[in-house]
């Protein structure tokens, strides 16, 4: 112990000594403040540019959704115009967007909930028993191109008269959600300490009991992360719904796509529709920022 404390003392002593000694002796020290000031200005400018680059297109979409089509074609009225909510009224009332909003929400919600029920225990087992090969099977689902699954699915489900129903859409979205949830929860369980679980078992809980009473309550944050991300991915999913949804189960991305298949594009309406799709998900994202970031980066820094 004494040796250790001596060592730390030594390093503590040497550091303050070298730091003030440097500017007097070596050249780079006086140059540094100037460099940092220039860098600070550059950094602020660069950050402003980045934010503009990311936000400006979304802002433009929002502006266009508040313009009449005449104003959209008038380049003189790019920023100065009388805003109107006519486009939103059109989209929501005449095109039945409330139905599509409900469909999107329902499909995303149920597929996320079911995927959590299936995925969390699976991720737990795969993490605790290091079932790498089994994990690979589930993660394969992320890699396979969706089209190659759609032809057989379409065949089977149309034979079962299920195409156009919610069940098949939810199943297909679970297929996206489940691998995501397993992936995120595996890295979450990997980082969770074993000790509490073990001491609970010493205190008489069965392993499953310990999972239910100790591990699950401890991993609420992880499940929130996985659930929110899977909800967003399901909400945004286009290809599966394009093939498997019917007129009654159409989700928002498909509804927007149908907007342009008519002869001429109603830009104002289209931008209002695009805003209606993106706003809910962005609001969710703003409130759950922390979770989204940890989900997106799950397992990325393990090496």
């Amino acid at each position, binding site marked *: 112990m004494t040796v250790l404390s001596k060592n730390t003392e030594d390093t503590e002593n040497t550091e303050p000594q*070298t730091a003030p000694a440097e500017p007097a002796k070596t050249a780079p020290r006086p140059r540094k403040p100037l460099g940092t000031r220039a860098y600070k200005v550059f*950094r602020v400018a660069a*950050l402003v540019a*980045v*934010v503009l*680059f990311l*936000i400006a*297109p*979304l802002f433009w*979409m929002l502006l266009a959704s508040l313009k009449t089509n005449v104003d959209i074609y008038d*380049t003189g009225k790019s920023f100065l115009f009388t805003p109107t909510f006519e486009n939103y009224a059109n989209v929501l009332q005449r095109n039945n967007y409330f139905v599509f909003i409900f469909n999107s929400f329902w499909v995303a919600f149920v597929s996320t909930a079911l995927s*959590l029920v*299936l995925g969390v*225990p699976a991720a*737990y*087992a795969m993490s*605790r028993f290091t079932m790498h090969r089994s994990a690979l*099977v589930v993660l*394969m689902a*992320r890699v*396979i*191109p969706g*089209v*190659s*699954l759609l*032809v*057989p*699915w379409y*065949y089977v489900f149309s034979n079962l008269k299920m195409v156009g129903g919610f069940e098949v859409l939810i199943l297909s979205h*679970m297929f996206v959600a*489940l*691998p995501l949830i397993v992936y995120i929860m595996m890295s979450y369980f990997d980082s969770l300490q074993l000790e509490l679980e073990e001491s609970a078992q010493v205190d008489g809980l*069965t*392993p*499953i*009991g310990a999972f*239910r*009473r*100790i591990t*699950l309550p401890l991993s609420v944050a992880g499940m929130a992360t996985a659930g929110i991300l899977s909800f*967003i991915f399901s*909400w945004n999913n*286009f*290809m599966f719904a394009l093939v498997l949804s019917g007129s009654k189960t159409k989700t*928002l*991305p498909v509804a*927007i796509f149908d907007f*342009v298949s008519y002869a001429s594009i109603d*830009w104002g309406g289209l931008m209002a*529709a695009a805003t209606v799709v*993106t706003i809910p*998900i962005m609001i969710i994202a703003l409130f759950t*920022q922390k979770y*989204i*970031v940890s989900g*997106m*980066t799950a*397992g*990325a*820094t393990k090496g």
Partner: protein
Amino acid sequence: MSVLTPPRSAPTRKAARPPSARENFSGWANRHRKWLFAAPAMIFVGVLIVFPLAWTLYLSLTDSQGSVRAASEFVGLQNYLTVLSDVERFWPAVGRTLSFTGVALICEVVLGMCIALLLWRPFRGEKWVRVAILLPLVATPVAVGMMWRLIFDPNIGFVNQLLGMVGIPAQPWLSGQDTALGTTIFMDVWQWTPMVVLILLAGLTSLSEEPDEAARMDGANAFQRFFFITLPLMMPTVIVAILLRGIDALKTFDILYATKGKGGGSFHEVETLNVYAYGLSFDYNQYGLSSAVLILFFMIIIGSMWLLTMRKKAVSK
């Protein structure tokens, strides 16, 4: 403890509560919990993957078209020969898939690294920048495609308005035969650079400060420290970012279909393998051919993933 738990009982089997009558079952469940927990998810994924993949493989060996239910004949490797000798659609689609992915990935990783370095050290207003980074990431790709369609419109688009102010003539962007693919790459970069930023930032914050400090003491400048210290340490994270992004970039469909429609435009300007296979399956009902394309596409994806994983192992060591 029990007060905390009640709503969370869904994932566990009935066996979790051990009343005396069920002790046997509970013991059995606890002994086999490994497979009891993993099996439902694996069966679900297995049924939805293994069966369709096997079916796709089978379809690729038949002349199935029109309707999947229509009688089809076994034609051996004929579809593969047709596809592999198709220089009009298949090989250009391969080229577009690879160049879309390659260019987008290079831009996203370079830009992503620059932005991650900008955000690395704390600063005032950090919160707002992080919000800005998050928004493109969660935006619905189809809606994003529509948004860019308006912004890049040759006549009324904002981009050409801006160029007009500086005196640059209007460009056709999405409607140009040579510019469409580049424009879609730009959209991909806009939407997905934030994801690369988040991953790289997580990597940067987990780096230890010591090597960087030591290099600073030795008088290394910022560029030297980045290229000789930070970048080599970050290589595993960079490869993870490329891997995660690359899989999705190869399979890009939404923005391409939303901006150019069927067949990737009238001259197939943005027709990547995924768009081509989708068109063959659901616009032209050529199931045999599309299955062959899909199997080849799948092999390209697996191949590139394998290469990257090998590279990552080499870098980590």
